[in-house]
């Protein structure tokens, strides 16, 4: 055996140990990341899953014309001012006879959500012949009742319901007069002060409009800037200066963009507050650096041989860019744009500054209607005192995460699909 082999052998063990250590570090890092992810998901799903269902209470309701003060259900004005709480109160009183004191009556009336009245109105509008009839209906339970029904034995001790209310609800539950249904209001309403009536549709629409504005503004501007800087700009101090500042822009805290939006877009140009249009413009400023930087990287990655081939055939600069560079760089640009969009979708701070944090019940119909966005809605709910909002916030986080995961998956799929090999 030669001297070298011996020497090499000696070092081999050490090299392999170092390699193992190196691998272990990598695995450890991935493990920590995965653990954080699992923790996050279990916590959010654990808290949020109950918000996707809600409880209803069965009651025989009489559509009494006198109590409701509605003589003609076809008259919209009468319908809107009808006293539906009255008939629900009567129905509750009939279901639990012997509740006499004012305090107890009020406690009893709290079992049903105030939103149930609107449901009755809508029913009456649909079918005017209901007037004077009695129907056995499932009515939305109040959020405290909802929480009580969802809770286990131990948690029920901490319920906000008083003892009598607990007894009533337990009675309804035992006799099968409560049922669990899918929480439709979560996906069909805007925000509300009442957790059982609060939904995220308003925030989803707000986010959607904001994202559309952001995409429409930032993608063309970002790509145009990247193409100019990469392909046409002369290499001089001025372009270096611009490049440095684009990188600086990427590092600016997002709330600064919010302040800028407030001062310039709302203050100077007089656009309305709280609207997705302004939100989109502000998020465009924030997303632009991401798109420009990733687009430039994508353009740089186009092999120079392709450019030379096109130029050698006599293609003009613009033809080279339009026919060859852009199509080849597009997957990278789209990936950058989607990642930038995902960033913007999760952005809260700048939108707080331009008033998208307002309490808005109505669903926005366009980018010029006041709206809020998903992350801000989460912030608002997480900040609310009612316990039910906690699970609502988690549910909204789940929806937001679903959107983010969809967008990121889309980015990966697009890249795979459009990627051309040469």
């Amino acid at each position, binding site marked *: 055996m030669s001297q070298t082999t011996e020497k090499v052998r000696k070092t081999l063990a050490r090299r392999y140990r170092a390699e193992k250590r190196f691998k272990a570090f990598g695995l450890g890092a991935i493990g920590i990341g995965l653990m954080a992810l699992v923790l996050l998901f279990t916590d959010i799903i654990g808290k949020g899953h109950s918000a996707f269902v809600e409880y209803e209470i069965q009651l025989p309701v009489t559509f009494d014309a006198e109590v409701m003060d509605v003589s003609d259900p076809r008259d919209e004005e009468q319908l809107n001012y009808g006293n539906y709480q009255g008939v629900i109160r009567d129905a509750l009183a009939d279901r639990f006879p012997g509740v006499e004191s004012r305090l107890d009556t009020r406690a009893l009336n709290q079992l049903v959500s105030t939103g149930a009245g609107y449901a009755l109105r809508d029913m009456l509008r649909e079918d005017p012949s209901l007037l004077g009839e009695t129907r056995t209906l499932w009515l939305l339970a109040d959020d405290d009742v909802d929480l009580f029904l969802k809770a286990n034995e131990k948690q029920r001790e901490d319920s906000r319901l008083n003892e009598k209310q607990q007894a009533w609800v337990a009675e309804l539950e035992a006799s099968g007069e409560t049922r669990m249904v899918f929480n439709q209001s979560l996906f069909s309403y805007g925000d509300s002060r009442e957790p059982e009536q609060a939904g995220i549709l308003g925030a989803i629409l707000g986010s959607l409009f904001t994202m559309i504005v952001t995409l429409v503004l930032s993608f063309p501007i970002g790509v145009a800037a990247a193409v100019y800087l990469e392909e046409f700009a002369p*290499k001089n101090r001025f372009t270096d200066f611009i490049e440095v500042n684009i990188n600086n822009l990427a590092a600016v805290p997002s709330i600064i963009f919010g302040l800028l939006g407030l001062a310039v877009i709302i203050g100077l140009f007089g656009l309305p507050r709280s609207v997705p249009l302004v939100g989109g413009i502000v998020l465009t400023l924030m997303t632009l650096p991401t798109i420009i930087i990733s687009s430039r990287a994508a353009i740089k990655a186009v*092999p120079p*041989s*392709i450019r030379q*081939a096109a130029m*050698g*055939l*006599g*293609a003009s600069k613009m033809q080279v860019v339009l026919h060859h560079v852009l199509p080849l760089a597009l997957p990278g640009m789209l990936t950058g744009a989607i990642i930038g969009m995902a960033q913007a979708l999760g952005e809260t701070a700048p939108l707080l500054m331009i008033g998208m944090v307002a309490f808005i019940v109505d669903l926005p119909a366009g980018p010029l209607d006041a709206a809020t966005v998903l992350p801000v809605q989460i912030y608002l709910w997480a900040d609310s005192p009612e316990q039910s909002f906690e699970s609502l916030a988690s549910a909204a986080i789940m929806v937001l995460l679903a959107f983010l995961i969809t967008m990121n998956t889309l980015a990966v799929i697009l890249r795979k699909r459009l990627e051309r*090999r040469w």
Partner: protein
Amino acid sequence: METAQQLDKPALGTNDAARDKAINEQAAMTQDTPYPDQTVGTPFVDDPKMRLRDVEVFYDDNQAIHGVSLDIGKNEVVSLIGPSGCGKSTFLRCLNRMNDTIDICKVKGSLHLESQDLYDPKLDVVELRARVGMVFQKPNPFPKSIYDNVAYGPRIHGLANKKYDLDEIVETSLRKAGLWEEVKDRLHAPGTGLSGGQQQRLCIARTIAVSPEVVLMDEPCSALDPIATAKIEELISELSESYTIAIVTHSMQQAARVSHRTAYFHLGRLVEMNDTETVFTKPEHDLTEAYITGRFG
């Protein structure tokens, strides 16, 4: 570590010695035979296609080409040979102004394609490149179909108005490049799916599809295997019937096989230009002889 170095030393030493020897030889050669003020041989011809005089190229302050003058005759294949870094590719790229894309590159001298001054500020470089096509070292088909690769040039220059005309141009070009039989059934398959040699012939087809007068080839076979190389060389000979060709090559056999005249470049100067046969059998300049006999390169 120490042992490893010790063990390595003998081998390194031999290499060094060999390299030093080669460098010395080269230096001695250069000393003994200083650059001629004028190129030896016959760089000029009557009624040239391209007339190039006192061409100088600078990269910033670095002069890459020193006063090169030569002619490229009509339907002639001229090969440019010389050691790496001698400026032959740089010189070739002046001929269709591909050097324009390099900001720091400056070209001086008088370069004419027939009566057209190549560096006339009024000349549209797009028009020039339609007349002087180029084939590159590495096959670089567009990531498009074979058909679109060939049709790209005619399309951007508006050479064919009807689909029928375009089809014809594509077929003729592919036939001239000797690729038609191999690809006629898969014209719409991606050009990048062809083998290296086929890709290079596709690039040649793409270049001649715009009917250039001159075709520049920058080491077109250096990335190909011998069989593909042979095919390209055969193709070059055929193409010389209708085109003027300037080819840069590292293979002296190739230069000997395909070209009518050969120019030998050394450190940015044109040392010798003569009939290919003369260059390879009776070189006039010692540097040329040293290069073609393989004493350095």
